[in-house]
């Protein structure tokens, strides 16, 4: 047997093994029980259209609000972290270490329950966005946690831009802020796109934690909606439906970002 033939056979055997394992798994699984527990059509039909109009919409809204807020705060934190003024650096470091180290659930409970309990202050209700006071507090918490992660990502991106770029811009007579905005940040953005996509997806799933602080029916996000269905129908099908919607939100967005990235690479 030649070496090439042997290689071909080995590879064939690998594929065969893969197929055999798949078939073995498929034949041993109890499909009927999987279908009735996870893919009950009657339940899925019942979830429509609230699954999209209420649950998916709220999840998108909470994610967009917390991502936008976190990004803005992260930029400030990243710049503070690199500031020549020492107290700014200390403050930013303290903030980042604290909120990166705390589980998001704890921060949400601290803001939504702790603040009202301690100070008798309830977060504002934002009617036009459909946010009740707890949800406002919860989104603030997600912003704090998200920004702590993003600030470090942004800082890494900014520091990845060669120093010469800033020096060249300054020697052309640009001011420091101008240099940051027109020369350094646009180049940093390219570097941070992949890790930022990760932060986005993490935040998308973290919005599910908001249900611990209490939600009215119209405020339910995808996971809360799914769990509610779980109790209503005593069946796991709603969770599967919700899982698919999460993927339907996350995958197009991450693919869009990947496409933008490829286009930028070409332009480079």
């Amino acid at each position: 047997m030649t070496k090439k033939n042997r290689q071909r056979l080995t590879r064939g055997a690998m594929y065969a093994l893969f197929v055999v394992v798949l078939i073995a798994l498929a034949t041993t699984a109890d499909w009927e029980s999987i279908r009735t527990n996870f893919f009950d059509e009657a339940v899925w039909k019942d979830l429509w259209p609230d699954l999209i109009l209420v649950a998916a919409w709220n999840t998108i809204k909470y994610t967009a609000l917390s991502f936008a807020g976190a990004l803005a705060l992260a930029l400030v934190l990243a710049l503070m972290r690199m500031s020549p003024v020492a107290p700014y650096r200390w403050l930013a470091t303290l903030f980042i270490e604290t909120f990166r180290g705390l589980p998001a659930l704890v921060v949400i409970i601290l803001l939504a329950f702790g603040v009202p309990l301690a100070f008798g202050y309830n977060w504002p209700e934002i009617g036009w966005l459909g946010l009740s006071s707890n949800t406002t507090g919860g989104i603030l918490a997600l912003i704090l946690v998200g920004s702590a992660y993003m600030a470090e990502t942004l800082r890494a991106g900014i520091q990845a831009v060669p120093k010469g770029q800033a020096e060249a811009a300054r020697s052309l007579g640009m001011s420091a802020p101008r240099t940051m905005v027109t020369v350094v940040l646009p180049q940093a953005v390219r570097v941070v796109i992949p890790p930022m996509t990760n932060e986005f997806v993490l935040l998308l799933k973290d919005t599910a934690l908001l249900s611990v602080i209490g939600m009215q029916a119209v405020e339910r996000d995808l996971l809360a909606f799914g769990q509610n269905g779980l109790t209503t129908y005593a069946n796991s099908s709603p969770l599967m439906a919700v899982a698919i919607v999460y993927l339907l939100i996350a995958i197009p967005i991450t693919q869009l970002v990947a496409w933008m990235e490829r286009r930028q690479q070409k332009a480079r």
Partner: protein
Amino acid sequence: MKRFLTPLAAGVLALSLAACGSDSDDEPKSADGSVTTIADGKLTVCADVPYPPFEDFDKSSPTGFKGYDIDIVQEVADHLDLELVVRDADFNSLQGGLEFATNKCDLGASAMTITEKREEKITFSDPYYESMQSLLVPEGSDIKSIDDLDGKKVGVQKGTTGESYANDNATGAKIVIFPSDGEMWPALKGGQVDALLQDLPVNVEHEKAGGYTIVEEYATDESYGLAMKKDSPLAAKVNEALDAIRESGRYQEIYDSYFSAK
């Protein structure tokens, strides 16, 4: 080639054997009249803890748990001559039947109301507790009854009878759904909701803590049952045990120790 294929064949064989093996021993059977449970000589009971006074953690107890449900299943286990093992589980997977279908628990004892929907997936024992709902408000609140909830925020627990009772009867109220009493209670104290509508015993605990008062109680014609795998042969044994406990007066003793000293 042979060197490669032999372990492969062995692997597939082992896999199919394992698949056959798991089928044979998943149904409790009682050929000689004794009970077969998922762990030999033990009655594994799952509860979503904490939910005082029905179930709570207790380091000093032999099972690590205490509460009304735990006391009841302890009696059941004693009657069946089994050792009681209690496991903390998620309420959703209990009431959807997943914990039983996957042989993780023999019994679910988690203040679980017997409903038709749940009975499609699990088998319930005879009722062991009649459930009452109640409305808790801060002392001095102008909410005197469920009719005063119009425009007010009332906290309920996700997926409970309290939630459906509020949905059906609290007209005009803003119903805020929480995962459990652990979140509802601080929300009432922090003023994020104006009242809590949930199982009476839980609200009784809060009333005892002071500053809050139960203004109304509601009979819901619903009762709690011990849950188990659909059509489990264990059901008959458990019902027998419950009957025996009632007859011996032990049931009343347990009931009074939790619910009569208001």
